[in-house]
């Protein structure tokens, strides 16, 4: 059933078994799991079916630290940021879930294997496969075999617009989808253990309440933190924030383009610019990441190789030919997303300025640490060493001390309500339930304690489906 907040009488109360806020990738994937259930779901979404600049402006905010496009990196519309995403998907690697003692604050409370059945379900929603080399054995590229320190990791292009799922909800009797409606406040019972109700506002000035047994926030990593932080009062730090963790540990996938160029001595990297279906990346093996104590990363070759054209590349090619190493060298620019080390000072906080609904705006202070660059530099050094030692190619390396000074992100917001085993270390538990509450859950990449190097949405979907199973079992 589809409704609009402007048509709901001000002052009324909407009841449901589960109230979900935010209909982006996470909220939609979660809610779809209840299409055939007998539980009543309320799905409240700020946006409409088409973009609206006034609604989008609710995403405006401020940045200190590295500049960041707060509104430009998301879409406030039914379907969320999948209205503008690129659709590149991959699982996180098993190592990404591990506690790595060389990465502070690393370690998920869940293991990769626990997520596998949900990854499979998420992949089937996107009509993707498991991304294994076997699944791409016929694809026109050759996996890396020359070095045990390196591997090929396959990403898949699945630019599904979640807007397409609208009709599922229009037809549903169990799910009440309310568009153009913004959650602005969480109300707790007296002892602050449970959410009693949630206030929803429209841009036309309508205000109504949602009352449910369980509440799920799926507003994206910046807004999830914003809403929890704005529940704070003078003498109380806010929902899930007893240890001042909400909004901290903001992570992105810093992207470095044009800082590395590969000269391949033979045609073995043909096909690495991918197709409309897949996109192979060069990565370090998990064993190497462990032994070298490095963060995860991926090295993409976004365009097909071309003959060396600049004078220095030609000279390097001449050496390779002189040594009998190359007959037809090709150059590739390399794109690198990296895993950011969780950093409590990299954070979302509330500004004194408010938006047109009266919500405090967010201030983002995205901060990297020198160790992020050190890890990347060593990773590149390993690539240089392995490609060199096996006569596969050479790299032109322009990484500098300043390379991560004003980094570009990948529009991936993560970590602001991190998952942990204890409230001292995180905001939600292994079931995505907010510590200190008994009926509030959070979905989206805000719960990622570490980011890996893979784009986040497949994992967001897997976690959403896992929470749906959990809440169905514990109805």
């Amino acid at each position: 059933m589809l409704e609009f907040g402007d048509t709901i009488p001000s002052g009324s109360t909407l009841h449901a078994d589960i109230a979900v806020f935010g209909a982006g990738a996470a909220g939609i994937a979660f809610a779809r799991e209840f299409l055939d259930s007998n539980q009543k779901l309320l799905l409240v979404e700020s946006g409409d079916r088409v973009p609206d600049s006034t609604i989008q402006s609710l995403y405006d905010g401020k940045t200190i630290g590295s500049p960041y496009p707060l509104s430009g990196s998301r879409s406030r519309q039914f379907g969320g940021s999948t209205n503008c995403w690129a659709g590149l998907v991959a699982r996180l690697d098993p190592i990404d879930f591990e506690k790595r003692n060389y990465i502070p604050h690393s370690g998920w409370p869940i293991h990769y294997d626990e997520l596998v059945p949900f990854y499979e379900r998420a992949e089937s929603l996107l009509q993707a496969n498991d991304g294994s080399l076997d699944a791409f054995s016929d694809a026109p590229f050759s996996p890396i075999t020359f070095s045990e320190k390196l591997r090929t990791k396959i990403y898949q292009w699945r630019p599904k617009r979640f807007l397409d799922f609208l009709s599922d909800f229009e037809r549903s009797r169990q799910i009440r989808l309310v568009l153009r409606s913004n959650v602005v406040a969480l109300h707790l019972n007296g002892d602050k253990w449970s959410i009693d109700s949630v206030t929803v506002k429209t841009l036309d000035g309508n205000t109504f309440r949602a009352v449910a047994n369980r509440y799920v926030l799926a507003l994206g990593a910046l807004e999830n933190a914003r809403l929890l932080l704005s529940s704070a009062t003078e003498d109380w730090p806010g929902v899930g924030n007893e240890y001042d963790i909400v909004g901290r540990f903001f992570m992105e996938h810093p992207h470095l383009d044009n800082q590395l160029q590969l000269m391949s001595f033979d045609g073995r990297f043909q096909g690495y610019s991918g197709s409309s279906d897949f996109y192979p990346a060069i990565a370090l093996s998990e064993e190497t990441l462990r032994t070298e104590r490095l963060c995860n990363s991926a090295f993409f070759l976004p365009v097909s190789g071309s003959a060396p054209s600049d004078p220095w590349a030609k000279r390097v090619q001449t050496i390779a030919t002189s040594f009998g190493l190359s007959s037809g060298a090709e150059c590739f620019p390399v794109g690198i997303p990296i895993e950011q080390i969780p950093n409590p000072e990299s954070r979302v906080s509330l500004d004194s300025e408010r938006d047109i609904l009266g919500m405090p705006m967010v201030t983002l202070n995205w901060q990297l640490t020198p160790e992020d660059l050190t890890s990347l530099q060593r990773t590149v050094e390993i690539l240089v060493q392995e490609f060199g030692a096996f006569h596969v190619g050479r790299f032109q390396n322009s990484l500098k001390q300043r390379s991560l000074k004003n980094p570009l992100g990948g529009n991936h917001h993560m970590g602001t309500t991190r998952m942990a085993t204890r409230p001292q270390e995180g905001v939600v538990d292994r079931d995505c339930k907010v510590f200190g509450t008994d009926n509030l859950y959070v979905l989206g990449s805000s719960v990622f304690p570490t980011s890996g190097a893979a784009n986040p949405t497949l994992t967001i979907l897997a976690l959403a489906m896992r929470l749906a199973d959990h809440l169905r079992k514990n109805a």
Partner: protein
Amino acid sequence: MKRRNFLSVLFLSLLHILLPGCASPRARNLDALNRFLLSLDKRKQLSLLGEKYLSLYPEERERNLKAVLLSEAPTNIPNMTSYLQDRLAQDFRTREIAQVSRWELSRTEARICALVHLSEA
């Protein structure tokens, strides 16, 4: 290959054939390295790279680069190209890497370029 280089290679090869057993293993290796250097094509390109390398790593000018390249060599290098290939692979393994115009090169290949440059200077 330029005519002058061709003649030099010919001369050295003849010497090698006419005076077997006269040279010590070290001299034979040096000889093989010289012939390798003389046989290189596109010398201008290599020389420019070598010049840049020497400007970035001036201490290399003080070294006997040929002796460095032949250090740890077997008594009789059967094939100079594959000897140097192994050496540069080893350089990468042991991080004997030099950055020239931001290209990460093995010391061995950079030194070969430096020798080409010095021979032309």
